[in-house]
């Protein structure tokens, strides 16, 4: 229920906290360009249908359906872009898409300690509109058991290593690569080695523990600070002393409180008032302790109560975070979290704004997006600060920020004209006078193919698409060892499904295109055993073989197998899930990884949008595209393809609308009809046309 309450609140905030001053942003950009002496003309703002496709993919990670295009077209022209933005921002998939944004930034990994619950936590934070600063604070300071305390996954993901965490905290949340100062004073910036170690000291008391018995992993706090100065190897060990934590970043100082901070306070106040009245409280820990202290005092009559001891015990108990299951919380990291997320820490708001800008516009104000330093200035510092201040003023509301960006002309501009010379194009893009060509991110590309091909649901009637499968399976010889499950040997999937519930798939060898949806709600359920997660793992035949050998050795017996050929008929009705909610990052070699999803292990490993041969092979010969192109009798286009109302003209128009979100030109209709007629059947011909549209540059690059 809490979720719903917050969700409502988030929407409310969006509605009244947004002054809709996108034009203000564009004015600032114009002013900055003028000051920089840029004389190039701006590309025009794109038309409605182009905007529609662009904003759908950016906000909810897929192209619009034909029904959604028609709905948009039915709205009065005046104000419909904003209406659409509001609709998409409230869409369930907005949280899915922007969890990916945070997952890249925060390096969330399903396969890291505490990773599954952490991803679910961040997803919930986006869904409920948790203020960004609050989310970050929790991630920075929380200790506890992996997965049971979701936020603790952040520190556990990097094994609570203080030096790593110092680099990560500065680079991820503030866009500063202070990590370079670990070994030497920063070559291009003000950061000294000492700054790095000061920062690391916040993590110096945090420990990662792993129970040898239960393998439960948790983070907790020790008394000893392990961060010593001077660093290892730079002097006699005896001289090395623990150093106190110190925040090396300076906060903005103002003579008079700026307006955005006043607005932040007012939004926070309104939210606090809107919150439900607090429930009647039970006795507090302090009450209980006082009670106990009294009893102790009475029992030990004749002796003075050891007031000092009690006070200390009280303080200790207060430090215990009950939700963390009794692990000690971190005072140091709480201080750090406060400093990092301080509204006066401009690094914090700028870093996030810069990342969001890069995601939506294709180019950060600062590039690379996590390398803010003195000699790497922002292209439009005032525009960036304007957005950063608005973001803070909205109580760090992601939706407000996204809306501010996508309502701006800078976002809505067309690409540079085709004939533009490379240097001029680059200049236009940097000056925000044209938007760069952007390939959809891997997840959006995948989901857009699935959307266009109607593969989220069954599209063939039962019995309309049967397939005969022949497989060679290996079964243990009778009497030889313990019978185990069948092991497929022919057409072996490159990816083996471990644990429960692997769906039988007709195209096992195409497993690199599967997406198995995670149940975020189940992952977040606290107080239960660690959730089971369908884990996909790329396992080569070799690894499977090694695994089998190990298992056999454990059983101390050699198993003998015979191979059997099995033929079965299946009703093949392929259904694909959204890739936004699958285990992430996907296994190596998966469609998503091939299209640039980062591994999220390496700090500063950003999305790679370059083209590769492997991508081409997966698009040309892959299963998702193939199935998306084929026509199912339950699809809306079927009425133009099959039966008495078949109409190739309409089929072409429909295909263009569904796949490219636009009407075809007359020439394209003629050409499309030719393709259809050349097919062995109309259905085949339409599949050919759709395959081409799904594969072409126009599909994968945002208009």
């Amino acid at each position, binding site marked *: 229920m809490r979720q719903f309450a917050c969700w409502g609140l988030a929407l409310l905030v969006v509605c009244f906290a947004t002054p809709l001053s996108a034009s203000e942003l564009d004015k600032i950009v114009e002013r900055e360009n003028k000051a920089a002496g840029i004389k190039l003309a701006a590309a025009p703002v794109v038309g409605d249908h182009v905007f529609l496709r662009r904003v759908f993919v950016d906000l909810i990670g897929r192209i619009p359906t034909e029904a959604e295009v028609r709905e948009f077209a039915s709205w009065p022209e005046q104000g419909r872009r904003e209406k659409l933005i509001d609709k998409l921002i409230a869409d369930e998939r907005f949280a899915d898409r922007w969890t990916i944004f945070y997952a890249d930034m925060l390096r969330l990994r399903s396969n890291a300690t505490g990773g599954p619950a952490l991803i679910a936590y961040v997803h919930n934070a986006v869904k409920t509109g948790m203020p960004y600063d609050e989310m970050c604070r929790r991630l920075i300071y929380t200790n506890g058991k992996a997965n049971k305390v979701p936020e603790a996954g952040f520190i556990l993901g990097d094994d609570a290593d203080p030096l790593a965490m110092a680099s990560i905290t500065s680079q991820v949340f503030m866009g500063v690569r202070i990590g370079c100062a670990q070994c030497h004073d920063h070559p291009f910036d003000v950061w000294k080695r000492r700054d790095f170690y000061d920062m690391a000291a916040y993590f110096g008391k945090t420990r990662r523990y792993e129970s040898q018995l239960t393998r439960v992993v948790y983070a907790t706090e020790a008394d000893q600070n392990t961060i010593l100065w001077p660093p290892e190897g730079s002097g006699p060990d005896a001289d090395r002393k623990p150093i106190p934590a110190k925040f090396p970043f300076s906060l903005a100082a103002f003579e008079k409180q700026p307006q955005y901070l006043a607005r932040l306070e007012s939004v926070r106040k309104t939210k606090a008032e809107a919150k439900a009245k607090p429930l009647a409280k039970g006795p507090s820990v302090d009450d209980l302790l006082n009670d106990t202290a009294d009893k102790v005092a009475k029992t030990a009559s004749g002796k003075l109560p050891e007031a000092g001891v009690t006070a200390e015990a009280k303080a200790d108990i207060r430090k215990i975070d009950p939700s963390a299951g009794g692990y000690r919380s971190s005072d140091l990291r709480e201080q750090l979290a406060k400093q990092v997320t301080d509204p006066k820490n401009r690094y914090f708001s700028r870093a996030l704004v810069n990342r969001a800008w890069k995601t939506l516009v294709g180019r950060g104000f600062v590039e690379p997006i996590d390398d803010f330093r003195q000699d790497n200035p922002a292209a439009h510092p005032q525009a960036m600060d304007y957005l950063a201040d608005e973001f803070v003023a909205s109580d760090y509301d992601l939706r407000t920020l996204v809306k501010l960006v996508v309502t701006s002309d800078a976002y809505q501009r067309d690409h540079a004209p085709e004939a533009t010379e490379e240097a001029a194009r680059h200049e236009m893009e940097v000056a925000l006078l044209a938007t760069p060509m952007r390939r959809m991110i891997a997840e959006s590309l995948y989901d857009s193919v699935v959307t266009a091909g109607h593969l989220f649901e069954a599209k063939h009637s039962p019995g309309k698409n049967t397939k005969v499968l022949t497989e060679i399976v290996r079964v243990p010889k009778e009497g030889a060892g313990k019978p185990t499950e069948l092991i497929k040997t022919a057409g072996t999937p490159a990816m083996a499904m471990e644990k429960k519930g692997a769906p039988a798939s007709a195209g096992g060898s195409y497993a690199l295109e599967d997406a198995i949806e995670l149940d975020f709600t189940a992952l977040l359920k606290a107080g239960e055993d660690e959730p089971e997660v369908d884990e996909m793992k790329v396992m080569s035949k070799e690894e499977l073989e090694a695994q089998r050998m190990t298992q056999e050795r454990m059983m101390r017996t050699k198993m003998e197998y015979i191979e059997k050929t099995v033929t079965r008929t299946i009703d093949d009705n392929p259904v694909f899930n959204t890739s936004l909610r699958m285990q992430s990052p996907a296994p190596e070699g998966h469609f998503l990884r091939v299209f640039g999803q980062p591994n999220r292990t390496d700090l500063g490993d950003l999305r790679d949008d370059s083209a590769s041969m492997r991508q*081409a092979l997966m698009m040309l010969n892959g299963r998702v595209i193939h199935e998306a192109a084929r026509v199912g009798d339950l699809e809306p286009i079927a009425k133009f393809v099959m039966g008495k109302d078949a109409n190739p003209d309409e089929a072409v128009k429909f295909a263009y609308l569904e796949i490219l979100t636009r009407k075809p030109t007359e020439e394209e209709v003629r050409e499309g009809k030719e393709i259809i007629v050349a097919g062995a059947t109309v259905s085949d011909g339409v599949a050919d046309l759709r395959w081409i549209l799904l594969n072409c540059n126009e599909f994968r690059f945002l208009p």
Partner: protein
Amino acid sequence: MTIGCEGYQLSRRAMLGATGASLLGMSIPRLIAAAGKDHAAKCENVILFWNGGGMTHIDTWDPKPGRPTAGEFQPIKTSASGVQISEIFPTLAKQMHHCALIRSIAGTQGDHGRATYQLQTSYLPGPNLVHPGVGSVVAHEMPNLGDLPAYITISGLAPRAGYLGQKCEAYFVPSPGDKDPYLAFPEGIAELRGNKRLETLAKFNKRFNGDSKDERLVSTQTSIDDAVRLMRSPALEAFELGKVNKSVIERYGDNPFGRGALLAKRLVEKGVRFVQINRGGFDVHTNAFPAMRDHGEVMDPALAALVADLAESGMLAKTMIVMLSEFGRTPKINKDEGRDHWASVFSCFIAGGGVRGGQVIGSSDEDGAEPKDRPVNVPDIHASICHALGIDATKEVMTPLKRPMKLVDKGEVVKELFA
């Protein structure tokens, strides 16, 4: 952010053009890279066996008979005089006059992740930079021969290409001998229909791209062209082990490792520059000896057949075979009859490509615990591989953020290998 190695691409393409985009790697006259050649290198291809998990050195290349650390395997004589290896390699023993061993690698990393990174790239992992694997370095520095990818990894993944860009990533063959579904049109799409689709697609892309010189658009169609060239290449038959005489397959071993070794041989014959074959299961913390016996049964025939076949055809002179792993294993045998991680000293197997066979370089102490003489640093191995290929390991390349990086991290060539 588009990472690429444009200069390299130009030269690669120019090279292909110059040879008339010949379809068979074998028919291409030997191309010698002009740049970076500092000696008359003999080596042209590399086959790297990557044994994941940390392969025990004492039970393979560096036996310690009579010591408490010896384990249960006996050393056996080999065709190289004075060189003994573990009994788990009886067939390979007969080929050791072609092969060299380094028994004094002084590793520094005992963690799988960090050690894998270093053994595969020569660098230690650090923030904000992904170093390329040595295979990517080779793909980057040497002109492509034929139309198969320059760098192929079998039965597992290779390290990433990092700052050398996507073009230098390894092509992934999940399972040697199995049909790769992505190299042929989807099921039910006949050749004629598939080709027609490709033709129309190229037309659509051309119209969409227009005169744009935007690399992001142009490179998509280029990648499609590369893919189609590969799909249509007669050299693809190298992947089809089904047509190979059964007795040949049995000589290598009809298992993924044997098929991998055989495939690697066929691929270098078609001009593939660097093939990596992955095998896991070497992390023998428990029951090390039965596990290593099993590994021996699989590895011995495959390695022996590969060395023998390449030697017989003369390819061994220009093909280097290297077997690497993260680290060695503890001399001490633990309570579970296993051995744990040990980086202080371990061994590597290396043959061909100009390496003088029949020799052992360096040695470990009597228990196989520390290097005794001629310690070899991990990057020295990579420097030696580059040296054999005529690649200048000290050459600097620029990362996309314009940070100069040497191809190999401070490695020195192990000169004795080539003496």
